[in-house]
Each structure stands twice: as C-alpha cells, then as structure tokens.
C-alpha cells in the first residue's frame, strides 16, 4: 500500500473492510508520516466525540386528534392480528356447522336400497304405462277395424237389398207378361 491520506480517513471513520483495515495497519507500522497523520486524525475524532449530546429542552409529543383518528371498523380492518383471529373464528364456526348439519356416518347399503326401491318404482310405473298405452292403442285399432267392417257390411247389405228389389221387380214384370200373352 502506498501512502494515501484518504485511506487513513476512511480507516478513522470506520468505512474500511476488515482486510483493508489490516492493510492500513500494516502500512502505518512501517510509515512514520502516515502514523503521525493517523494519530492526528484519531485525535481529531476523539475531540469531536468529546462533545456530548444535549438534552432536548422540551419534549416533542403529538396529541391525538379525533378527526384524524380511524373509525372503529378501520381499526379492526387494518389490524392484522384481529382480522386473523376473526377469520380463524369464522372458519372454525363454518367447520362446526358443517359437522353438525351432515350425518356423521354414511350408510351405503341403506342408500343402495333406497336407490333400488326408487328405480323399481319408476320401472314398474313405466311398465304399467307402456302396457296401458299398448292396450289403448290396440283398443283404438280394434274399434277402427270394427267400424270399417260395420260400414262395409252395411254397404253390402244395401247392395243386396237393392239387388233383391231389382229382381223382385223383374219377377213381377214377367208374371204380368205371362198373364197377358197367349190370349190373342
């Protein structure tokens, strides 16, 4: 290390690292002028620190002004511990309510039986409805066929009556002609 007054000043005011401190001390041991300079700087620092702090003549204090004080809800809202406690209490309450509201043990067999019963009921109802619908449809078809057959039978009957009347008239006509013919 070469002679550097700034390094000595940094050393005196405590702005050197431990390694730099060793370098300065080694240099000062072998350098008369730097040792004297360091002595003067240390004396200067000692003189400065002999000046003690004075007591403040009047304590500084601030009085709470209600206008600027936070409202109660702002105090709670901005209070981390209080909000944390409230959140924890809310969570605990929710867990308790949830625990009491639902059954503690789930009976799978019971649920299975209930589901089976419901399915069976619905299946029966569906079958009954399907049978009923089929019967109704069959009845309707039968009635329609019956009606068509009846109409066809009535039409045949009408034709037969018409034919019968025609032959009766023809027969009557032949009888009249036979009674009047050979007499000439």
């Amino acid at each position: 290390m070469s002679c550097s007054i700034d390094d000595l000043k940094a050393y005196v005011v405590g702005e050197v690292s431990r390694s730099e401190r060793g370098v300065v001390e080694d240099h000062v041991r072998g350098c008369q002028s730097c040792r004297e300079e360091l002595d003067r700087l240390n004396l200067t620092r000692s003189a400065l620190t002999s000046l003690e702090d004075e007591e403040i003549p009047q304590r500084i204090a601030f009085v709470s002004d209600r206008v600027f004080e936070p409202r109660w809800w702002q105090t709670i809202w901005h209070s981390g511990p209080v909000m944390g406690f409230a959140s924890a209490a809310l969570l605990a309450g929710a867990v308790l309510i949830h625990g009491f509201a639902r059954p503690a043990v789930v009976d799978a067999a019971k649920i299975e039986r209930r589901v089976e019963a419901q399915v069976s009921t619905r299946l029966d109802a569906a079958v009954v409805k399907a049978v009923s619908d089929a019967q109704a449809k069959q009845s309707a078809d039968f009635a329609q066929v019956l009606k068509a057959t009846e109409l066809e039978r009535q039409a045949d009957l009408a034709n037969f009556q018409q034919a019968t009347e025609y032959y009766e008239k023809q027969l009557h006509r032949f009888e009249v002609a036979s009674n009047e013919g050979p007499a000439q």
Partner: protein
Amino acid sequence: MIFREVEDRDLIAKARRGHVEAYNVLVSRWEKRIFNYLLRLVRQREDALDLSQDVFLKAYQNLKKLDDPAKFPAWLFRIAHNEAFSLLRKNRPEGEMTVEPRMAEASGGLFPIEMKLAVRGALDRLSDDQREAVLLKVYQGFKFEEMAEILACPVSTVKSRLYTALDLLKQTLAPVKMGGAE
C-alpha cells in the same frame, strides 16, 4: 439493535394506522438525535427545537410514503436535512463565504469545557455541507451510502465533503489536543 429495529417497525406500522401514541414513542426515541443534529447544524437552540417539531410533524404526515420501515432513520434525517437547509438558505444569502478555518494555537492543558468550546468553534468554521457530513458520520454513525441517500448526492460527494472537513478540523483540533497533552 435488531430488537430495536423490529420495535421501530412495529411502531411505524401502528402509527401508519393512526395510533398517535405509538408515534409519540417513536418520537421519544429519535428526538434527542434529531435535535442535536439540527442544533449543531443551525447552531440556534430555538431554531433547532422548532425544526425538530417540524421534522416529526412532516414525518408523521408522510409516514405512509415510507416504503421500507428499516430505512426510517435515514428517511427521518433526510427530512431533517431538508428542513435545516431550508432555514439556512433563508437566513443566509447565497454565496456568503464561511469563516476560513484558522490554525489552532498551541496552548497549555485544556479543561473539558475548553475542549468543547474548541470543538464547537471548529465545527462552526466548517461550511454547512462539511459540518453536516461530520455530524452524520461521526455523531450519527451513518454509512456513506445512507449519507448519500439523506443528502441526495453521490457517495463520492459525501466522501469529499467529509474528508475536507476532517482536514480542516484536524488543523484546528489536533494541534490543540497534542499541545494539551504535552
């Protein structure tokens, strides 16, 4: 020291939420340091006391702007620096020269009161910037980086002001001390 920092942080957090009493505790911890820093800078007790009150009022009003509570000391001294130099600029016209330092006369043994007067005299003969650098480093123990934040200037400027001040103080105080020891 670590516990102290934690406690300060808690007090700052409470004060930010409007707890004036928490802030008063914070003030009671720092008022003596701030007052002595201002007293040695502006050299008038009444001014130093008024400025101290202004510093703590401004700090309270701007506490929410403090990003890192760990930097509260440097932040507080930054406010104090601004207040002090605002007053110094008002009281002293620009360009006025400070008294040149004079060589201390080698004298016989100094009593403590005389030493204090000599130190005060030597500090008074420094420029405001040089004196402030000495106050922040020697009396308040800030690091160069913190001083640069407080003074809003580069670290190189901080070093320059401090080293020049030490040279001037050394001329005044070291011969007196050495003479007194003889």
